[in-house]
């Protein structure tokens, strides 16, 4: 809770920086504030307190995810320095990022559907603006518009679902809904409109996590939005959305999982296949990462399908591994695409120019592709294992198949970067210190988690 307050206050203070002219202090202020918030969240470990008539509930699950998204934001800040030092509207950007984070924290910690909705909207509305924050770029405007239209549409579904659930359980409170679902399910008297409500909420949530067939906005928005914002969306926002998704379904609807688990299993299979197959033919690295992030959403959905005692830890580990990998990959993309060209061909000659850093990028790619012994492999292992235990063997087979497709396109990054530079290519900007730092940190963390994955997974089981 303290973390949430700190982040919200920080957002308000950064908004003032324009008026009171302390824009130079912006970046240090944000970093210090976020570090403090992270420390406070970790300090609350094992307390599990309910606040404000059980509107938010900071248990270990939400504290872990809160810390994760704050840390991810801090890592993201490493490459986004330019955004906060030189950009003319830096104060607004900082504020919006902090409010997004604020919404994310609420989404990991809500204990009431109304809080969930408030968190989701704080997050989404800030993001709509951020996606179109490159005002002079038509694509960025398009991205913002598209995201806004699709997002509000999804929110509509979500709200309708919530209303139906409220109609049945007569409460927005997760605990009360869970009790209601449990008693009615035990007597086989679950009313039809509860099922409808669950379905509608599922649709809304799947829009947010870009699961197929609700994924169509994602590639365009990811491609159009400024690269840094895309990186933020693909990591912090996605993590928060999955935390919310898992929290809702594991708390409330576990007892009627027979109703939705099969559906979700099919959707997760379709999502990972769609994402991976479409990623294969992309020539733009950014678009490829967008499709790959859809595929990863499919894998994370598997944890919700499995819904057993290791799933919470598994989804946390997966979100961590995936976000670290994506941040590293986006750092690279950001470094090589300064002239607006995000083609994967730009990576040619990367290994020759940046020997050791190419090695780190290689580690990150291995992690994203799920090759042992890097973090991504163990994340996949835990997820697959959980699904295996819940008797969705066919889903595991599909997931293995789609991982192989994933290897095919992820390895294009490695293959392209060791090729010699084509002659006509202009000289590419070399990696700056910030990019190197982020690459180093994410690669080392990916390796570290790979060597000892039990720690992160064990936090939540």
């Amino acid at each position, binding site marked *: 809770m303290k973390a949430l307050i700190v982040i919200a206050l920080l957002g308000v203070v950064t908004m003032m920086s324009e008026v009171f002219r302390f824009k130079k202090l912006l970046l240090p202020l944000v970093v210090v504030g976020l570090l403090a918030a992270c420390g406070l969240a970790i300090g609350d470990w094992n307390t599990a307190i309910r606040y404000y008539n059980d509107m938010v509930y900071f248990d270990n699950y939400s504290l872990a995810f809160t810390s994760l998204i704050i840390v991810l934001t801090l890592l993201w800040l490493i490459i986004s320095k330019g955004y906060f030092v030189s950009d003319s509207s830096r104060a607004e950007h900082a504020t919006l990022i902090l409010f997004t984070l604020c919404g994310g924290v609420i989404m990991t910690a809500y204990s009431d559907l109304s809080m969930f909705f408030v968190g989701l909207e704080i997050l989404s509305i800030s993001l709509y603006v951020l996606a179109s924050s490159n005002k002079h770029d038509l694509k960025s405007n398009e991205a913002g518009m598209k995201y806004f239209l699709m997002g509000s549409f999804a929110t509509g579904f979500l709200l309708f679902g919530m209303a139906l659930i409220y109609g049945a359980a007569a409460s927005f409170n997760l605990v009360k809904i869970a009790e209601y679902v449990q008693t009615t399910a035990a007597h086989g008297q679950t009313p039809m409109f509860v099922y409808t409500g669950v379905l509608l909420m599922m649709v809304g949530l799947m829009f947010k996590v870009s699961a197929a067939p609700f994924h169509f906005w994602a590639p365009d928005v990811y491609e159009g939005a400024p690269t840094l914002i895309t990186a933020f969306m693909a990591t912090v926002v996605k993590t928060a959305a999955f935390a919310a998704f898992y929290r809702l379904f594991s708390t409330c609807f576990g007892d009627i999982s027979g109703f939705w688990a099969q559906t979700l299993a099919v959707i997760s299979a379709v999502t990972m296949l769609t994402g991976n197959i479409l990623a294969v033919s992309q020539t733009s690295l950014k678009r490829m990462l967008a499709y790959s992030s859809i595929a990863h959403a499919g894998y994370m959905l598997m944890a919700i399908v499995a819904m057993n005692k290791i799933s919470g830890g598994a989804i946390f580990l997966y979100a961590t591994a995936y976000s670290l990998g994506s941040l590293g990959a986006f750092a690279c993309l950001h470094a090589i695409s300064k002239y607006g060209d995000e083609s994967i061909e730009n990576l040619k000659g990367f*290994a020759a120019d940046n*020997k050791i850093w190419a090695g780190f990028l290689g580690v990150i790619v291995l992690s994203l592709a799920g090759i*042992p*012994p890097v973090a991504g492999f163990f994340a996949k292992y835990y997820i697959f294992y959980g699904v295996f*235990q819940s008797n969705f063997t066919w889903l595991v*087979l599909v997931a293995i198949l789609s991982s*192989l497709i994933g*290897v095919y396109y992820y390895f294009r990054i*490695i293959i392209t970067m060791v090729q010699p530079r084509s002659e006509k290519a202009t000289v590419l900007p070399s990696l700056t210190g910030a990019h190197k730092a982020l690459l180093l940190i994410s690669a080392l963390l990916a390796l570290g988690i790979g060597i000892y994955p*039990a720690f992160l997974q064990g936090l939540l089981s």
Partner: protein
Amino acid sequence: MITLLLLLVPLVASLVCLMLDQAKVKIFALGTSLVSLGITVYAFTLFNNDIADQFLVNYWWIQDLGISFKAGIDGISILLVALTNFLLPLIILTSFRHDYKNASTFYALMLFMQFALIGVFTALDGFLFYIFWELALIPIYLICLMWGGKDSARITLKFFIYTLTGSLLMLAGLIYVYLQTPGAHSFDIDALYNVTLSPAAQSWLFWCFFLAFAIKIPIFPLHTWQPDTYTDAPTQGTMLLSGIMLKMGIYGIIRWMLPIIPQGLSEWGNTAMMLSIAGVVYASCMALVQKDFKRLVAYSSIAHVGLIAAGVFALNLQGLQGAMVQMIAHGVNVVGMFFIIDIIQRRMKTRQLDELGGFANNSPIFTILFMIVLLGSVALPLTNGFVGEFLLLNGVYQYSAWMALVGGLTIILGAVYMLRAYQKVMLGEPHARSVEFTGLHQTEKIVLVAIATVIIVTGIYPKPIIHVAGPAIEDILAHVKDIY
């Protein structure tokens, strides 16, 4: 402790390599590989034949999932560890006359590969085995990709995805067996050995494991990645692949397949045997018509390992002992063979048999050493190849006389294609460019003499190899015997 040393020396050395410059890194890599060889020799002196799993290290890795870091050495492992650590200095020596760009990365990857291979051969935990199995794939992939020929991107990716498919199936199989272990599940090899699996489960598990190992070996018809990869890879990559890495597959069958799913083997063993034998004949015939010398040896390698696999699937003592001896012999011979091709190619800028000829008088010592390596490959008596193939055919014969008859063709066909190659390269009218073939350099002599010595010594006196592996093989067979 020795197991840990064997693992850590190459791992640390590969990290150090990354920091060295081009001039020093060759010497350093050679030095550390010799250190590993020394440790192996020391391990041999301490090794006691009759005890299973010596030099055991056992730590928890992920306790919740029953995964431990458990590694040890028995009679089967020590031979393969010895093969790895004997070949690696030689492979590094063969690279001395190459000037690879990014040499430090090259040697780092080679040593990392050594680390992973030792891990595969010593792991005594199913999950750990899988991790090392995959780890071995990454460095060889990069070696073939970065220093390979023109088409390396396509060829190596095919190789990678092919083998990864197999290993993921193996992982799925391992997890299934793991879930059948009683109580808190465990990946420990003893727990996996003692699982009772239904015949139906063993039947499909057979294919999970078989595909993984058969792709690596490779067994016909899963061999399609192999000729391209061998031909396209840099010489040292080909040596690592053919000399050591394909032994991972055979080793995997012996260690992780026979004892865990004996019934699956009794159900499908005949199919596997037929595929192996079919591969022997097919690859020998393909080798007969090859024009590229390297490709010829690649196909001959499929034929040789096909027979090794057939010996393993015969599930008897002679077959398995033959497999052990022949794994060592094939590893040594094939590295020698690829080195000879490398020597020729570097001098003549071609490997096409039609463009070579008449070197015999240019360098008598090369002619003799080439002949010895060649005779080892065609399994002439008193060379190492003979002992292995004799035992293998003996084992296969006990299983089925027909199979042995067809498999025995390898000896005849092998002699035909190898001697034809020798004739085309060394004998006959000197080709216009043959004068360019100069005598051997010092490092080249050292490597070839070492290989020739091993070929002859183990050919005349193979008993130590058979002796060392004997008790371990009987242990493995004890698990299979219950079924027959």
